[in-house]
């Protein structure tokens, strides 16, 4: 590592931040763009599993809340893509890489949503897992990214409340409604456990080394379990993992997540990966004329 890069590394590891106009080591820039791009892609693709439920929302309040939630996710995508664009990668290129599979998006957005129970479980648990990751970006060494995370985390707090409300309404409703939650939880547990990634140590995780994120994968997963398993159990719900337990030292033990599934899904082989990319592609193509002619300055 050359001296300038070493100095940069020491600066960020001491808590220092950099701006878009500062010199960035090439390795840092590339890893940063890739990370930010995946985050933006995830917000964009995360819209698709949820938006069909906007149309089916069973009350006006739920319809409004869910539309606002999905709107926030589009807004987050906008904020995050802008940061990546200012690092030098054009939006069109990022969309092209997303559609070709060259760039990835998080595992949870490759799965189907089947019932209103999914709407609740996603807003309650999937968003919770995502917020833990997002909070670990609030002190990102790259300041423009850290700054937008503040707005993102603030908006996510509304989603958590919405999710909790949907779940509690179902859990205090009919047996059928409670079953919707349990069934959805059973299906989502595997992807949730895979969400924070395989447990490489912080020191081996470039995202932590460069202080792009302030937390390792396993730390995030433990935080999720610590915060949410008690909430799940207190509602009388069953987590489909007989090995899940909290040791006396406060560490959660669990069955080994299916890392092969994670890899397969994230490389585009999830149950809904291609459908959703096709939908994205269809609308990008259909409205290309709007961007190319109407909105051209």
């Amino acid at each position, binding site marked *: 590592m050359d001296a300038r890069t070493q100095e940069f590394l020491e600066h960020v590891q001491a808590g220092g931040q950099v701006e878009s*106009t500062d010199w960035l080591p090439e390795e840092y820039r590339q890893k940063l763009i890739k990370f930010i791009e995946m985050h933006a892609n995830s917000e964009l693709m995360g819209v698709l599993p949820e938006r069909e439920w906007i149309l089916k929302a069973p009350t006006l309040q739920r319809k409004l809340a869910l539309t606002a939630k999905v*709107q926030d996710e589009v*807004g987050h995508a*906008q*904020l995050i893509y*802008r940061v990546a*664009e*200012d690092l030098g990668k054009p*939006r069109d290129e990022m969309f092209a890489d997303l559609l070709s599979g060259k760039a990835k998006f998080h595992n949870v957005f490759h799965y189907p949503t089947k019932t209103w129970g999914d709407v609740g479980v996603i807003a309650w648990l999937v968003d919770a897992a995502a917020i833990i990751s997002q909070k670990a970006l609030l002190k990102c060494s790259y300041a423009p990214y850290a*700054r*937008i995370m503040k*707005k993102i985390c603030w*908006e996510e707090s509304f989603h958590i409340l919405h999710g909790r409300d949907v779940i509690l309404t179902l859990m205090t409703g009919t047996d059928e409604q409670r079953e919707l939650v349990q069934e959805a939880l059973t299906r989502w547990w595997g992807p949730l456990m895979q969400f924070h990634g395989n447990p490489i140590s912080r020191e081996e995780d470039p995202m932590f080394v460069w202080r792009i994120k302030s937390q390792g994968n396993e730390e995030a997963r433990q935080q999720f379990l610590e915060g949410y398993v008690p909430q799940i159990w207190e509602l009388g719900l069953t987590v489909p993992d007989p090995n899940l337990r909290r040791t006396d030292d406060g560490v959660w033990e669990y069955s080994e997540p299916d890392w092969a599934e994670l890899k397969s899904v994230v490389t585009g082989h999830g149950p809904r990966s291609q459908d959703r990319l096709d939908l994205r592609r269809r609308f990008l193509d259909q409205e290309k004329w709007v961007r190319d002619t109407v*909105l*051209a*300055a």
Partner: protein
Amino acid sequence: MPIFEVFRQEKKGQAFAHAGSVEAPDAAFAEAWAREQYGRRGESEALWLVPRESVHAITDWADEFDLKYRRVDGYSIKERLREARERADKAKAGA
């Protein structure tokens, strides 16, 4: 498409802080879009939109000759005040 920087005032009386940017073909679109992106929850008292090319950044400074008088820490008030007080006390005692 041009970029518009968005500055946001959270509460009346506060300074406008940079909040992000939107990509828009002109000021009208930038307004319509920034209004929702930065105000849909009533979280902003006001917004300023500025085309990116109108923002002039200054990030480098020259301070070669250490002109201490320009900074608060360039004055050593405490020590000389103590000395002046001692002199005044002595003068009073001797009078």
